[in-house]
């Protein structure tokens, strides 16, 4: 098995204690940092697909994301200043009145793993805070809003409309248990992902990556 194939396997199976060494060995053997990163991104794509299809569950996704972050830590000093791999910044939060964080955190991991620079606004985020974050952060190309309660669906609508009002061209993706494609269309969002596994693919599609 090639070193890169081994890294892919380690990420997919969440072997966080072994990934860093494997990445270092691949670099030492002459593999390019970008190729290693691409392989890990592809691995997380596989993980996302398996999660969406019900083959794996939240813990498996979490340990895979942790494994990838261990590998990225080794690559970071080498790739510092090389912005070519970034898809841009994505601001994400759970909307006002809602304290659910696991879905948001999974989406953040998946988007980060696919090349977005993520800004996590946390939970119970008022609409204005999304707008402020777009202003405060560089190269924001996407805003992701999560809402897990039927009671916070109006807050999701308010968040999307407030963002669109301040930044009409900003792309916004929404998700969460009560959200549907129909509702996403109704409130003016650019995209909807039914689960964390499919969120990265949808996010990339929305920004045209």
């Amino acid at each position: 098995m090639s070193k890169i194939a081994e890294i892919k396997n380690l990420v997919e199976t969440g072997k966080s204690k072994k990934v860093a060494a494997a990445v270092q060995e691949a670099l030492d053997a002459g593999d390019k940092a970008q190729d290693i990163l691409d392989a890990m991104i592809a691995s997380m794509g596989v993980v996302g697909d398996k999660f969406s299809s019900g083959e794996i569950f939240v813990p498996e996704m979490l340990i895979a994301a942790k494994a990838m972050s261990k590998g990225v830590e080794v690559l970071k000093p080498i790739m510092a200043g090389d912005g070519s791999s970034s898809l841009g910044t994505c601001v994400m939060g759970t909307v006002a009145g809602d304290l659910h964080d696991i879905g948001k955190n999974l989406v953040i991991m998946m988007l980060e793993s696919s090349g977005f620079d993520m800004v996590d606004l946390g939970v119970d985020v008022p609409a204005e805070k999304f707008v402020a974050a777009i202003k405060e952060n560089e190269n924001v190309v996407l805003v992701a809003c999560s809402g897990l309660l039927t009671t916070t669906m109006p807050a999701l609508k308010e968040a999307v409309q407030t963002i669109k009002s301040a930044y009409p061209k900003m792309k916004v993706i929404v998700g969460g248990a009560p959200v549907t494609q129909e509702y996403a269309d109704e409130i003016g969002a650019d995209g909807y992902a039914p689960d964390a596994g499919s969120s990265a693919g949808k996010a990339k599609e929305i920004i045209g990556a």
Partner: protein
Amino acid sequence: MLTKKENLLETLHGGQPDRYVNSFEPFELFLDPIIMGIGGFAYTMKPGDTEVNGWGVTVCYPMGAPGPFPVHDQEHVILKDVTKWKEVIKAPKIVYSDEEWADTKAQIEKVDRNDKLVTTFIAPGIFEKLHYFMSMQDMLMNFYEEPEAVHELIDFLADWELEYCKELIKHMKPDAIFHHDDWGSQLSTFISPEMFEEFILPAYKKVYGYCKEQGCIIVHHSDSFAATLVPAMIEMGIDIWQGAMSTNNIPELIKQYYGKITFMGGIDNGIVDRHDWTREKIAKEVERVCRENGTAYFIPGLTMGGPGSTYEGVYEAVTEEIDRMSQIMFAK
């Protein structure tokens, strides 16, 4: 006409119910001194409140939300390293004096046990307690990274809950235990069935096994997808899975596990309990659910974990529509 209790028992045992068991109607729920002492749940808090419960977990109930949440920022999370749980986790009191039980017992005495079941309420359950102590993310990672510590902590919680149930049974002699523990999202379980069998099933076999030996009906709430956990639910002794969401394909589950467990729910709060609810939408959904699921081993109701709804009037409208469907589905 059967009493509410008789009608429930006929439904559970595959007999001849004369109508749908309508939501929570046969269950007279009681909040006992133990759960009231622990606090930090929907019936001890109101929207806007923040409380520290008997386990030391800070719980807040946001305005407009259907229930409270544990607070998991760095300042409030109580278990940062699961291997140190013995140093951190201190179980709340479960032994109360006869005097402290007197009010509950007096209320119980008023119940006509031929008509209704005296029902205890336990929440949060063992899995939920784990993610009250630490964030959901950390807890789920610990199933892989610190399995021994997670096993130990679950054993500790199961033993504590067993003693808790002994006290409930001693003082209340309940006919049913209504026990909350959410095991999934609307699309999936949080952990795999294999992991569930390894970690969670043994704990519940201990707790529910004891309660069943004492003659209690076990009603377990998980308003989620959990179809893949039904074999484990049966093994641990659950009589009624309350909160079964429509995403589970309930008609198929009834067929597959016919006679072994009863499914309660099917009417997802996410679909009908919304700001834009109307009587027509509810009537349509209740009719769809009743027709799809039939009358055997099925109790129609909202998936929420208690008699009520987030939006005023929804629960009442749902129960009225279930009564309407009883006339149709049980017509002779």
